[in-house]
């Protein structure tokens, strides 16, 4: 199973600033291993973020995103103690969901 994400969500003025680190290989499918064999593409395809139960961000990713991706964004609203939940799904259909409280 994939490692937990590291999520920080902070209220700044009237918006919530979210910073998230994800643990993922993000193999492009263009790199060869030391035996000369292609390492198959393995990457996060979709990311979904909800604030309480409302979707505030969806993203479709490609293989150009780096290994161990870092994403930061803001959304309007949010209050201290609210839940921010992030889910990613990769092309192996593996997924990971983590939640942080807005501080």
């Amino acid at each position: 199973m994939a490692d937990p994400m590291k999520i920080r969500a902070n209220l700044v003025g009237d918006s919530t600033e979210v910073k998230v680190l994800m643990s993922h290989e993000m193999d492009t499918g263009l790199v060869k291993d030391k035996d000369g064999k292609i390492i198959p593409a393995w990457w996060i395809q979709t990311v979904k973020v909800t604030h309480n139960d409302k979707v505030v961000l969806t993203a479709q990713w490609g293989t150009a995103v780096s290994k161990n991706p870092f994403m930061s964004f803001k959304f309007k609203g949010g209050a201290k103690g609210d839940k921010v939940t992030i889910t990613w799904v990769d092309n192996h259909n593996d997924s990971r969901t983590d939640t942080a409280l807005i501080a």
Partner: protein
Amino acid sequence: MPSIHSLRLIVGVAAIAAATLAGSAFAQTTLENASAKYRQDLADGNPADLWVARGQEMWKEPRGPRKVSFESCDLGLGPGVVKGAYAQLPRWFADAGRVMDLETRLVWCMVNQQGYTHADATKQTFGNGSRHRSDLEALTAYVAKQSDGVKMNVSLADPHVREMYDVGKKAFFYRAGTHDFACATCHAADDLRIRLQYLPNLTEPAGAQKAYTTWPAYRVAQGETRTFQWRLHDCFRQQRFPDLIYGSDLSIALTTYLAASANGAVYAGPGIKL
């Protein structure tokens, strides 16, 4: 559509590589600025934190054949004490009869307290992707993080530590191999670079402080968090020397020399490096 003010995806080193193609007169400053900017962008999101988080979980859990956690591992400040531990290592450990750096001490605790064989404890000293992760890199990143903001304070009062310092300094200038290289070939003068990579002058406090206090570090080009043992190991590979043994006395001697040279500086790791 949600109201998204900014969405940034960090896409590896591509932006920095492009920046270095600028005119040669500006290449130096452009490279420095680009990497400074990149580090700043990632300061809040250093992927080394993923290693720290994993190391933190491992620190608490019962491990090995004896199901003992690292809470009983003494890094020099008492069993299980991690706050400030990295900033005072290497040091002499009477129970082991050796001067040890953090990584060597972790292996010692795994073997002597948790019951691993030495071979099992050092099976994956350096990680290679999520399929071959290194527990030692994660544990080292976690413990080092607990010295973030602490002043480097390696004591040379113990004669064993002092000897390792002297040996490390001597070894730093030892030239050998097909290319006549020593550590000093690249790291004993200011403002030199290999290709576009600036080299710290490790014989001066300022250079040693800046370099030592930012390891372990997330290496963007590798997507891995690397430790000081890794740094020494890979320097010797490039020096055309043989394979430096993890936790060997030479690795501890050089670490003692460089860590003590960084005394007085505030530890600020784990860092992030290209």
